[in-house]
């Protein structure tokens, strides 16, 4: 049902405009409104907070179908979950009641602010600070490349409350658009996922009430890592969707394109490429969905699994989209066909929510921990 509806919306509302959205980089407001009206925004959120009551699995199914048509719309949809998840995981009941229902209803979008100019893979090197002054904190600093930046109303931002403590000195805050001292940088001009909004969050003596702390002071890094563990399967699903979309196009073209008097799909060289692509997509999907089920079952630690599925799916997306362009040949290189866009969209999935190098570090670390435990 979720898959069918996501497919229907993608085909009827996203497909007709994806080329234009890619060209202009315009934010898909209309499409987000459709997601809101069809209850998709609260898909993974509990019914108690006006959500639909699904889990990571339902969320992944939807993200895949949307990304199969447009990775940019897919990430716009998914990034709101990235901003909402920390509130769901660490928020007090009051915070959840206040912030989650508008996001579940799609009235508001959410975003997550961790990355900075000098704190990318080294996320602990945060330079944004939050200083306690009486009943509020004063936040200063700049977050970079924040998806849904400027479009979202609710932000979860990580800032250092005690630099001396290193990663234990970071704290998560719920920030709202419109707070004095909270402004946005220009919209970034990206290689792919161009319709998604990516902006800087700029804080200049921005006052945040004490009650906007998410979790406890000093827990910021834990909030960030737990959130990313939970949302990485969503990026895996986005990657699977982009790859499936490219496979769809390559297959369609291979049947239509005639060379040497035959449709090119009759050539084994093409069949083998398509066979590899299809197998890789299916394997990635299986891993993403298995991880989603694992998370939904209430597992406590799933860093390794969620890293693995994001790693495999995003590498697959890059490979499959590249091969799709190859199958379409010169046509694939042209903007009239959608596969070059898919190839550009695929690249980011290897980079954001932790580069694939960082994912491998996480997996390696988990393996070491496991083997130490089993001794």
């Amino acid at each position, binding site marked *: *049902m*979720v898959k069918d*509806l996501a497919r*229907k*919306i993608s085909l*009827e*509302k996203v497909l007709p405009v994806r080329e234009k959205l890619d060209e202009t980089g315009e934010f898909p407001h209309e499409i987000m409104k*459709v997601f809101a*009206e*069809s*209850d*998709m925004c609260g*898909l993974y959120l509990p019914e108690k907070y006006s959500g*639909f009551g699904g889990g990571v699995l339902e969320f992944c199914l939807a993200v895949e179908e949307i990304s199969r048509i447009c990775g940019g719309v897919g990430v716009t949809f998914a990034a709101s979950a990235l901003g909402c998840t920390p509130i769901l995981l660490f928020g007090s009941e009051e915070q959840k009641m206040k912030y989650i229902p508008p996001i579940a209803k799609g009235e508001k979008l959410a975003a997550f602010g961790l990355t900075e100019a000098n704190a990318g893979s080294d996320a602990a090197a945060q330079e944004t600070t939050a200083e306690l002054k009486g009943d509020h904190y004063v936040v200063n600093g700049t977050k970079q490349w924040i998806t849904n930046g400027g479009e979202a109303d609710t932000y979860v931002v990580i800032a250092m409350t005690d630099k001396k403590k290193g990663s234990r000195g970071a704290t998560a805050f719920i920030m709202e658009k419109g707070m004095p001292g909270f402004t946005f940088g220009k919209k970034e001009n990206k290689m792919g996922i161009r319709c998604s909004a990516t902006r800087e969050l700029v804080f200049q003596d921005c006052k945040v009430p004490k009650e906007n702390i998410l979790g406890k002071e000093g827990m910021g890094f834990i909030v960030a890592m737990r959130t990313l563990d939970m949302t990485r399967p969503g990026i895996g699903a986005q990657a699977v969707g982009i790859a499936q979309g490219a496979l769809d196009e390559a297959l369609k073209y291979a049947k239509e394109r005639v060379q040497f008097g035959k449709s090119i799909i009759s050539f084994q060289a093409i069949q083998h490429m398509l066979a590899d692509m299809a197998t890789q997509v299916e394997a990635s999907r299986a891993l993403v969905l298995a991880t989603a089920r694992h998370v939904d079952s209430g597992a406590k630690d799933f860093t390794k699994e969620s890293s693995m599925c994001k790693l495999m799916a995003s590498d697959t997306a890059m490979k499959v989209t590249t091969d799709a362009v190859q199958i379409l040949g010169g046509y694939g290189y042209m903007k009239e066909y959608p596969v070059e866009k898919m190839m550009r969209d695929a690249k980011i999935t290897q980079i954001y929510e932790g580069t694939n190098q960082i994912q491998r570090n996480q997996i390696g670390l988990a393996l070491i921990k496991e083997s130490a435990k089993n001794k």
Partner: protein
Amino acid sequence: MDIVVCIKQVPDTTEVKINPETNTLIREGVPSIINPFDENAIEAALKLREAHGGKVTVITMGPPQATEALRKAVAMGVDDVQLISDRAFAGSDTWATSYTLAQAIKSLGKYDLIICGKQAIDGDTAQVGPGIAEWLEIPQVTFAVKIEISEGRARIERLLEEQNEVVEAPLPAMVTVVKQINEPRMPSLKGMMKAKKAEITTKSAADIGADPIKVGLNGSPTRVVKIFTPPAKGGGEMLSGSADEIASALAGKLRELKVI
């Protein structure tokens, strides 16, 4: 305000195939959808409900599998749906169909507005909506591109070929809508859950108090003698140039063809 929307389940295809022996549409293996104009009718009804309150009831006459179309209407957010189904309705033409639907609407009790799509994409007759209005003896306004309700009257903008026309009618009235009137909403997840569980009321000929000689084949004054695909029109020829050149070229061609 109580609004009744009449819908039809049609095959989801632009290339309709016809069984030459029975002169009926081949429905096997073709997925079914709500007639697209009827989706516009549902959307128009939901918008009016949002503005004025009230209730939207969707009815369809058809075989039991037409409940699928009614479930889609539930998913879009209508209040009530009813399937009007009876073996006695088999072979209905547009006259018998509109009689049956009119009877079904009467059996609902109160109604202020009836909305239909301008025509079905399979039969393309555009007669059932107006037929219902005739049977119910209420005003009918076709090809609506805008419907406004105030003080018991409907103000309707009709989409005509050259210009639009604004017509007022007292309620209750029957209105058919064109696709330009709105964009039908997507079903919602909660609506789809509701649709899955919804119990669909089915009404028989007896339930709606239909006169047996007015329904089905008995009640149908027309018979389909033959359905066929006409040969495609050949491509025309466009003449270009100044008015004088075109005129003389045209005269020459007509003479060539011995028309003049």
